[in-house]
């Protein structure tokens, strides 16, 4: 008995001692945003920091941080439109100390864009990490004519298209109806009008959809098996499939692809700010960006990042985007309080409608 006890005490003391030495960086991020090889290199460079990764998405990140008032993680990566309202409502982030972050090589347009979206009372809450777009993924051999969001509802492709039933498709459909939803964010009555039209359109369209996809995996499975020929998609998912079947291309819709920027934020009760700043600076170095982009398929927010994509992804990007398409990108605008609810209602109506 005594020996068991002393063994326990010893192991507790040991773990306490090692805990005091090594700092843990608890990272809350998207799937594939913390590849093993990058973590290994980081831990090699900073042997006293352990990296713990939790994979998540925008909604779950905010829900997790809200549940604890911003504790449990030291660095999170929500998209740039999920910072302002979430901070106002739930107070889950803490302001960044920009002097700790090497912003000299960041793409100025992206840095300024994120800062503009994420500044409250003069304090900056986020800096950009990677960006990408949402547009159309098309099997050009089967559906050569799909060029715009509305084509997903074309009866010619009955039962062979897909989309994700989230706010992105609402905004996309609004653009395809000739509206500018982000401009209407300042006038919520007008935005409700647009949403009603969008809802009606998407309910009509429901018959045409095979299924709503939930994540990159089920979307890829449907596309590769040929069950669907066109879908709303993240560009990175489309690039991955391009490698397996060159007929599957990413097509920026006629009204412009929707662009998102995933950012770095510090949760309010994070305990390892120094380690977090080290991680931010580390992953934005060009040689790490190359590894990161190979894993994520997204483009880092540093100068010349497009050249750091691996060859197959670069080919996919060049097949997808012309310079005009890049100019036509629509960046997600900040979500003002209340809009989340309006959009949620619209999505519920579409889901509950009994289509095909």
């Amino acid at each position, binding site marked *: 008995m005594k020996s068991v006890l002393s063994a326990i005490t010893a192991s507790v003391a040991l773990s306490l001692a090692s805990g005091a030495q090594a700092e843990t960086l608890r990272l809350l991020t998207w799937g594939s945003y913390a590849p093993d090889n990058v973590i290994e290199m980081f831990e090699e460079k900073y042997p006293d920091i352990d990296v713990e990764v939790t994979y998540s998405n925008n909604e779950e990140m905010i829900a997790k941080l809200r549940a604890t008032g911003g504790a449990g993680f030291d660095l999170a990566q929500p998209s740039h439109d999920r910072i302002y309202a979430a901070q106002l409502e*739930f107070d889950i982030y803490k302001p960044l100390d920009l002097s700790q972050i090497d912003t000299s090589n960041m793409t100025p347009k992206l840095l300024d864009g994120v800062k503009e979206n994420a500044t409250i009372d003069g304090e900056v809450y986020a800096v950009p990490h990677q960006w990408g777009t949402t547009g159309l993924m098309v099997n050009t051999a089967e559906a050569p004519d799909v060029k715009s969001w509305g084509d997903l509802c074309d009866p010619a492709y009955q039962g062979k298209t897909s989309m994700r*039933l989230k706010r992105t498709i609402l905004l996309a459909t609004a653009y395809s109806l000739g509206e500018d939803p982000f401009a209407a964010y300042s006038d919520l009555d007008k935005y409700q009008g647009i949403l009603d039209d969008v809802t009606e359109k998407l309910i009509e369209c429901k018959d045409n959809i095979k*299924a*709503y996809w939930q994540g990159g995996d089920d979307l890829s499975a449907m596309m590769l*098996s040929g069950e669907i020929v066109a879908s709303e998609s993240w560009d990175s998912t489309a690039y991955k499939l391009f490698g397996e079947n060159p007929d599957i291309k990413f097509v920026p819709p006629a009204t412009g692809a929707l662009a998102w920027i995933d950012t770095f934020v510090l949760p309010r009760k994070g305990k390892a700010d120094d380690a977090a700043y080290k991680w931010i600076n580390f992953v934005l170095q060009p040689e790490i960006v190359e590894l990161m982009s190979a894993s994520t398929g997204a483009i880092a927010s540093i100068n010349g990042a497009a050249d750091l994509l691996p060859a197959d992804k670069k080919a996919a990007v060049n097949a997808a985007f012309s310079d005009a398409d890049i100019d036509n990108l629509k960046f997600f605008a900040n979500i003002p309080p209340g809009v989340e609810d309006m959009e*949620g209602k619209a999505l*519920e109506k579409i889901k*509950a409608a009994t*289509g095909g």
Partner: protein
Amino acid sequence: MVDAADSVLPCICGTGELIAVGSDIRKLSLLLLFLPFSLWILLLIILPHVGMVVLSLREKVAPRVYEFGFGNYIDFFMEPIYWNTLIRTGLMSLLVTFLALLIGFPVAYYIAKLAGNRTKGMLFMLCLIPLWVSDLIRAFGWILLLRESGIISSFLMSSGLIDTPIEFLYTDATVIMGLVYTVMLFMIVPLVSTLDGMDNAMIEAGYNLGGNGFTVLRRIIIPYAMPGIVSGCIVVFMMTAGSYLTPILMGGKNSSWFTEQIYDQFISRYNWESGAAFGFLLLAFTSVVVWLGLKLSGQTLSSTVAKS
């Protein structure tokens, strides 16, 4: 623990004091036995639910400003989508419960009454084995079988029975099938344990008195198995109404399941207040259905669930 004061004066011990000390120990051991249980109930069941009630009674008036009120519950009744989904979930769960009983009863009867001792254990094992695999994997198994490019569709194609692939997924029938499969075991286990306790002589007596198979089933077996039937139905109904993965994965674009509404309120819309209210409405709804079922079948909880 009134006697505690006495027991600190030990050892000038008359017999009466000895007994008092003995009953103290018994009380103490009872208390210690109950402590983990009551802590579990209090900390993991009651407290979180109280927290949810408080949450569900908060109305958001502005960012970070909340007021007490019933707005979240009123919202539910004002919006047909919400209560339609709840009723739909309830009806489909009842159907699943009924189907599980219909399929599970003969299986349980065979295991308990007809199978020999060795086959009995093996058959019970066979029912248990699917439970070793998680819900998620089982749902994906169905998806592999049923999808348009899946095994069944391609088999039918290659055998020449159909010309174009058929999509079996994403219908209510698929959801019900998947749910029946998931919950079947929870119907079979209580039925087997009840039927196991039944004396075969009772069935023989039924036949001897001139009853045919149907009469024996209706007048003897079913009444005897009632505790198992009721507890199996309650468990299955509650599990089905509260299930999340199967309806979402197999129901596709038309699956409206109430748990999905709760998830959306909590996660997609950051609306914990109405999510909590929805959670309580689901609890209240399923409790009312169970209560109604007990009333209509003339059973009580103590005569069925406690017995089986």
